């Protein structure tokens, strides 16, 4: 006896343009297993008409108040990050949604039944892959580049993922493609941090919940993911990472594990490091988002009593130009230095002294000769 196929009519707003509301019938294809830390349920649906497969994130059935609160927070995170990324991609002129990021298609904001619709994830979680094998040589560079590219996009969108780990980074071995997924813990950059995440994946300042969320919080987590993916060591097994055993990694990802976000390089900088000769993906903050961000900063500054940031006084991490080749300024400073050409007046004192000496000697001689 076959199970009847459930159908449902979904009304949702497009992620890249919330003014467009779409109504579509979908068929339930199957339930997906949710990660243990997720309070959201995942269901695979097929949109009738287009027949495309979508993943629906929805509230759990009959949640407790605490569970409902947690699920709503996670759904908010998905929608917030998805909307920001979708609009950034739309305004950046990029050719389609970057494959390195999961894509929010739309979201339903009905209070009783909020949900998010995403393209199904690709590949498998990195954690599952690493249970079987390490990344092969041909996959390693693509993996690094893809993950850093994903973080460069999120940084440009002002999104901090806050849960980058082998469970949320997926790898498709056939497509040779990485995908950063599960934005349920995401927040907006520059908002006050709250304690999120656990050792070793969350950065110290993120765990402590001090200061303001920074895209470079994710750089710490991504560094650990990369370390595990490239070298097969579980970071949780170490109190101190054996970076000295992996000079290649230590060189490329220098300062990634710095104690504070400000000391860490940005994802764009890391991209420059690992593939200096490959044109990096230049992502910029969309004007609209930049305006919103500026307004937010002003608002926050007013609330906290901070002076309004002066343009250029505190450059944002994602707008800092990548550093140039590591050459000291001294090398390009030419030969100017303490040594200068001899001044023309050197011979004057010599002449004076000689004249005085000669004159003194002659005068003394004449006087004595008399």
């Amino acid at each position, binding site marked *: 006896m076959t199970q009847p196929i459930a159908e449902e009519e979904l009304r949702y707003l497009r992620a890249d343009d919330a003014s467009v509301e779409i109504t579509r019938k979908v068929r339930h294809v199957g339930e997906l297993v949710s990660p243990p830390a997720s309070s959201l349920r995942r269901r695979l649906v097929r949109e009738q008409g287009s027949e495309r497969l979508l993943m629906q994130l929805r509230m759990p059935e009959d949640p407790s108040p605490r569970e409902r609160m947690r699920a709503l927070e996670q759904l908010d995170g998905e929608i917030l990050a998805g909307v920001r990324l979708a609009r950034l991609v739309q305004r950046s002129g990029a050719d389609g949604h970057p494959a390195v990021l999961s894509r929010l298609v739309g979201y339903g904001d009905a209070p009783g039944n909020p949900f998010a619709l995403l393209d199904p994830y690709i590949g498998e979680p990195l954690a599952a892959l690493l249970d079987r094998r390490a990344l092969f040589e041909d996959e390693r560079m693509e993996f690094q580049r893809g993950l850093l590219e994903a973080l460069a996009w999120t940084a440009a969108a002002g999104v901090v993922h806050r849960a980058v780990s082998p469970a949320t980074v997926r790898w498709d071995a056939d497509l040779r493609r990485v995908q950063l997924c599960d934005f349920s813990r995401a927040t907006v950059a520059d908002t006050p941090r709250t304690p999120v995440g656990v050792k070793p994946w969350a950065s110290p300042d993120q765990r402590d919940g001090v200061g303001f969320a920074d895209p470079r919080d994710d750089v710490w987590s991504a560094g650990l993911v990369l370390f595990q993916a490239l070298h097969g060591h579980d970071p949780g097994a170490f109190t101190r990472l054996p970076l000295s055993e992996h000079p290649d990694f230590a060189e490329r990802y220098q300062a990634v594990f710095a104690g504070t976000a400000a000391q860490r390089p940005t994802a764009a900088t890391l991209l420059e490091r690992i593939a200096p000769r490959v044109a990096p993906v230049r992502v910029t903050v969309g004007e609209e988002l930049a305006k919103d961000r500026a307004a937010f900063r002003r608002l926050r500054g007013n609330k906290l009593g901070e002076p309004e940031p002066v343009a250029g006084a505190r450059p944002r991490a994602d707008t800092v130009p990548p550093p140039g080749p590591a050459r000291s300024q001294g090398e390009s400073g030419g030969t100017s230095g303490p040594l200068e050409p001899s001044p023309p007046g050197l011979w004057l004192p010599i002449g004076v002294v000689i004249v005085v000496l000669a004159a003194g000697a002659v005068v003394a001689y004449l006087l*004595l000769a008399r």
Partner: protein
Amino acid sequence: MNVHHLDLRGAGTEAALAAVDRAVGPGSGLTDSRRALVLDDTSLLPGRQRVYERILTSGRVDRVVCVAVGGPQRLAAGRGLLRPQLLNPTRGSTILWVDDPTGIGWAADPPGAAVPYPGVEPGSGAGLALLVDLLGQPEVFDEVSRLGEELPEGVACPGLRWAAASPGYDELTAALARAAAALTRPSGGPRPGSDAAPGGAAGALPREPALAAGRRRAFQDAAADAGSALAAAGTWRGLFGPDTPAVIATELLPAAGTALAAYRDAAADECARLEALPAAERAARLRALDPGVRADDDPRGTAAALRERVDRELAAGMTLPDIGAGLNGLANRVAPSTGAVYASRLRGEIPPGMVDALLRPEPPPRPAPVSAALVLAFASAAVAALPGPPGLLSGGLVAVLWVLAMGLVLTRLGSGPSAAPLLLGHGGAVALGVAAGAGLGAAAGWQAPEPLVIGFALAAGLGLAAGGLLGYWRSLLRRWTAGAALRTAEAAAEAVGGRLLPAAWSEWASAGARRRTADGARMLAGAVGAAGGALSRFAEELPAARPGAGEAGRLDPVVRFDLARLVGRALRPAWDLLDGGAAGDVHAPIRERTAGLLAEYERHVRDRGLQEPPGFVDPDEPRPALPESAWRLDDTLASLWEPPEGLMLQLCDPASLNLLTTSREGMRAVGFAPRATRSAMRAARGAAGRGRPAAPGETVWTESGRFAGRLRLVPLRAGTVESVWETADDTAPPPESAAEPGPAAVPAAAEPGPDRAGPPPSAVEPARGAEAEPAITPAEEDYPR
């Protein structure tokens, strides 16, 4: 293989022939075995003439033991067994008739009633399974075959008594669980794995590459210029030559610094450019730069090296997690470094500070306002002025020359703000010297000395001034450290050109082999992990052993040996991939393969014990022996010493017992026991067995197997066995073809042995005077029992 095993039960003639061909037919591999154990149906046996002819003329088989399974057939005179004429003792053939595959408990002499045999499930087929297991051991096979010649018609019904002569299943289970756990637990200790990169990825550095060689030569030229100028600077040439210290500091050393930076950047660019090239282009470029560059190694070499490593570590008893960790470590070590690493190492060898030290070197030291030079100035002038008033002129001349020389010194060093005070100081010193010298001369009364005296004083003053000046110049430049910076830079360039770039060259020249080795090691680490996972699950699913079972761990060495070989065999999919130079995700196939082999192994140890190596162990490889203490000896002894005519599991239906003889004389018996138990058995017999053999005289000691006991062969009564002649087309042969078979077809039949009376009179040769009767084929009639 010591005994060819052919199961022809249920197979038609063509299928049986095909099976024979596969096993011992033309083209099949030759082995050291010339024995064939054939299982057949009694109902099909009469039509098997061609089949057994094919076996016996294969040239690969000398002796055949046919286990004919099934009830008796109708003969002309009652019931009995029909057999192909070829299957007779004179042809080295023996027939063991298994009327009932399970068997019954029956004593032959005095003949008793059929009773259930203890421990044998009705309908289980246990008797036949055990018989086949025993006959698979060459020692038992040979003895049965030998005894078959003594049996009437070479036919007997087998009976068995046995006891397990190996550890109990509980102990085996416990040993399996322990060995699996030990193999899958990381040791945490140092790993003895080889650190050498397989596949030829490691080796001596090639000769210095031509990378950025032009820039390096440019730096060396610039450094040589600066170095020679620096060496000359401390001499008269430093004072009067073209390369003044100021020129060295402002031109020559910065030029060397610029050349050094250019060399470093060119090397880094070359590294980055080479790294970015596709493998084939990179190899071509490296070969163009240096024709001696090595090509990538053969993938099979890499695979063989990795396999040798894993096999060695498995044999050494390393745990699977340790082997996996070692392989991952190997992968990390042999993976070619990236250009970023070499750029970093380049920056380490030639740091910006080193270049800066050349671009903006320390200026030459300047004379201090108060120094020993002032004393020299004073003394030189004073000596020249000693001839009294005339000495004023010679002293004045020396004074003027000294001041001029100091001006020259300052000019050569590059002037500075302290020039005027310095000159004034020296002017004062020489003036004082002149005054002092002249005054001293006047006081001494030298008012008008000889010109010779004046000349002498002048020469002495000049000489003193010149020598002092040169010494002072030397001492000044000795304190100049620009030379040290230049030497450091030269050493760094040498290190880059002599070690670092060749190392990069070497890595990238063998990048293909290195990448292949690294990927192979990673794949193997995953494969070993998959095998370990399957082993862990297997250990978890094993039935819990009774408390105390196998606590001594006496079976552990054997089980660990077997499990290590099992893992080695399970890794075959990975070897196949590696041989092809590829790497892939083999986790699932290896996990399944390991699980399959483990199930096979469990069956093996349950059914055949540990004494016999399982199928995945190379029989030629030395395997740890089971300790004698692992054998259960009491039952073994009892079963060996009991008389053969007593109660045994007779493979005969009660309804057919009347076809068997019951006399002790006609019966034959063979005792069997694993050789490993021999001394233990003798010891176990203790005082009672002193002076007596460990087992009855007819006992054969087997190399494998886990059972000890007796196999008795009960002959059939006279007239119950008939031979059937059969032609190639399953019809009765013409008498001449039966009498004179072609030599190629049945060579032995053409020359009947002494026991043969010649060709049979008909297709059916009645045994022992039975009347001839047309051949009955299974297709013609069913034989109800």
